[in-house]
């Protein structure tokens, strides 16, 4: 405990010294974060300085082993670091699907060779990854995917189409589910890693209702993927035809992550903020809106407590393994409701789509963006199915 307090004061001092003021403001949107990769550019010096300071300490991936580019913090230390960063609103130095998704899969399923190579690249922000899961005909029913890798001995030739590949147009590599055995639905999928610069890969951004295009359609036209990238470094995670195990593990991890992203309790309750915003224009909240905000705040504050309990329980292995599905379901539905209420409180001003006063339509675009929360990473309907089956043990679920 004393060590932890030492660590806390050291961390605090280090952050004080190394985290520039500009990096202590909330990330405005996805483009405002640093994503790394071959074509990465820093938006400003502060972003660069902060990234490099963290990189030197292993703080781009603080809980990963030092051998793979992390700081090797234990869970208690990692929590202290999170708390201290959150205390000063420090931004993450590096945003990356490599950190959030591929990394955990490799830590769990990867060979030593894969870890040495890919985890270090991720930690250093050298390679930007994207995820190739969904296909036009396979959304919630992911396992029905059709993208096929034909076995050519030392390589596969991959053909097919992915959809909802986040920032595929900016990504360097993809981790991708590919069918390698048509006979077995579940045990015929391989979790492949390959370069997006490979011949035959093309991407097309999808314009969303929010006006942004964070996702792409990605097409594979006779893409040749070697089975190995060298000693102890296969081009697939886990075993050939057993990629579904890796995908399931990652989906669980993703839901855990999404469910943890509900935000601290500083932002959970919005009624007071909305009242102050109204007051700034000499207005006050409609009484019915006020009641709806209060009902929301009750739910949001209660969910914050649930989030805390969930994280505490995960740490000691007390949480039901399907609990992330519940957290994801409730958290995303709440976030949609939060933005509905913010739009209602904001009135006609928040309808503006590209005015300067609204920062280019942040309220309305942000509101529309939240509608994907309950679709991506497993729909609310799928979450409810999973709870029924795995937690409530209902028949036929």
């Amino acid at each position: 405990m004393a060590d932890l307090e030492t660590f806390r004061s050291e961390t605090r001092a280090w952050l004080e010294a190394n985290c520039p003021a500009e990096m202590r403001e909330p990330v405005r949107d996805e483009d405002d974060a640093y994503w790394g990769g071959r074509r990465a550019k820093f938006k400003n010096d502060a972003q660069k300085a902060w990234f490099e300071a963290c990189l030197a300490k292993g703080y781009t991936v603080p809980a990963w082993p030092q051998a793979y580019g992390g700081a090797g913090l234990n869970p208690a230390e990692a929590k202290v670091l999170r708390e201290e960063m959150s205390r000063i609103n420090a931004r993450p130095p590096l945003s990356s699907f490599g950190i959030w998704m591929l990394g955990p899969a490799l830590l769990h399923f990867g060979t030593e060779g894969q870890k040495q190579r890919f985890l270090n690249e991720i930690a250093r922000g050298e390679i930007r990854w994207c995820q190739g899961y969904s296909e036009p005909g396979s959304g919630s029913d992911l396992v029905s995917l059709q993208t096929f890798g034909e076995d050519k001995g030392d390589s596969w030739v991959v053909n097919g189409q992915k959809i909802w590949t986040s920032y595929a147009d900016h990504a360097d590599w993809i981790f991708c589910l590919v069918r390698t055995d048509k006979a077995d639905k579940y045990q015929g999928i391989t979790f492949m890693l390959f370069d997006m610069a490979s011949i035959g890969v093309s991407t097309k951004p999808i314009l969303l209702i929010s006006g942004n295009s964070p996702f792409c359609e990605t097409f594979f036209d006779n893409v040749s993927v070697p089975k190995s990238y060298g000693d102890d470094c296969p081009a697939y995670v886990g075993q050939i035809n057993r990629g579904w195990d890796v995908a399931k593990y990652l989906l669980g991890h993703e839901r855990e992550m999404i469910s943890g992203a509900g935000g601290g309790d500083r932002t959970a309750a919005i009624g007071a903020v909305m009242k102050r915003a109204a007051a700034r224009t000499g207005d006050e909240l409609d009484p019915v809106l006020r009641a709806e905000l209060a009902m929301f705040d009750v739910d949001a504050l209660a969910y914050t407590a649930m989030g805390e309990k969930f994280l505490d329980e995960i740490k000691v292995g007390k949480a039901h393994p399907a609990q992330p599905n519940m957290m994801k379901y409730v958290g995303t539905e709440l976030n949609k409701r939060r933005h509905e209420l913010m739009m209602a409180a904001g009135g006609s001003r928040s309808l503006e789509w590209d005015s300067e006063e609204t920062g280019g339509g942040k309220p309305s675009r942000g509101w529309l963006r939240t509608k994907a929360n309950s679709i991506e990473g497993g729909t609310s309907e799928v979450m409810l199915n999973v709870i029924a089956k795995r937690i409530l043990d209902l028949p036929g679920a």
Partner: protein
Amino acid sequence: MPLYHNDDQAMLADTARGFMAEEGNITKQLRHWRDRNCKDGFGHGLWKQMAEMGFTGMLVGEDDGGLGMGHVEAGIVLEEIGRNLTPSPFLTSSVLAATALKHGSADVKGRYLPGLIAGDSVFAVAIDETAKHRPSRITTRAERSGNGFRLSGSKSFVVYGGSADMIVVAARTSGSDDDDDGITLFAVPKDASGMSHDAVRLVDSSMATHTKFDNVELDGDAVIGEVDGGREVLNAMLLAGRVGAAAEGVGVASGAMDMTVDYLKQRKQFGRLIGEFQALQHRASHLYSEVEIARAVTIKAQQLLDANDGAGSEKAELMVAVAKAKVGRTAGLAVREGVQMHGGIGMTDEYDIGLYMKRDRALQEFLGDANYHTNRVAELNGY
């Protein structure tokens, strides 16, 4: 009067449905003008066509060259506008401004009605001054000046204000900000000097303005109705606009629901049509029920307004508030369920369901959202 369309109304509904589906559909209108970044946000050609159909002047009295129809009829057109997400100045011009102009002098009528009826003119209304609908508080001031008035203040959420040939402005000519009396309505022409617009595109691709009045000089004959006695006209205009917005909202809700139910019958997941999943069936059935009810109460409100020549009995006022509130919640449910049930593709600009969500949001806000009108229902009921 039975709560369904009589034969004439049913015929009008057939006509309007066919016409709007053909000429006012999403591809021809909403996407067309949006993708061209049109500064009006709607097509003048369609407006002219609507005039030829007799729509633009349907609420204008026969003596004044209109069709002398009522809110049931206007609602029929508006429901089709809603279903097709047709960007159109119909609600602001042919419903709101037309209702105000009923109370205008022969002079004012003569100046503006022919253009409306012919589809040559477009009107807007300027009521709100903050981001929320607060018609009880009017701070924009018009002071006597010579034979006329001098108008100063600012208005927001003036839908199609930048394209309007005339804007009906509610201003205070006496009393203090929250007084019921002391309101006067003015017909402010497009070229009035001292009026300036800050145009904004809204989430649904429609256009609105923040409009400033800086000592705008108006003739005495710009007044609609009585000086200081404009509250009654304003209320009539608001009732007409709200029940019209409700009708359009029913169209938005219906269109979103139909599109979603169709999708449930086409999309397969887990080897089944998703419409086979009981959880989705129950939600669709619930939504259907709400849309039916929203439509019923809207017709009820229209009939009550028409029965009273738009003047707004106590009961009509209550049911208009109920309709706007009920439609608001229902259309919100319809578009949220629509996007969610469409899944990922519901989030894409390519599919139309998201456009319904955007239009609903803007329409929701117009002339008071569901919260505002729910509160009004409580107030009108004395609690």
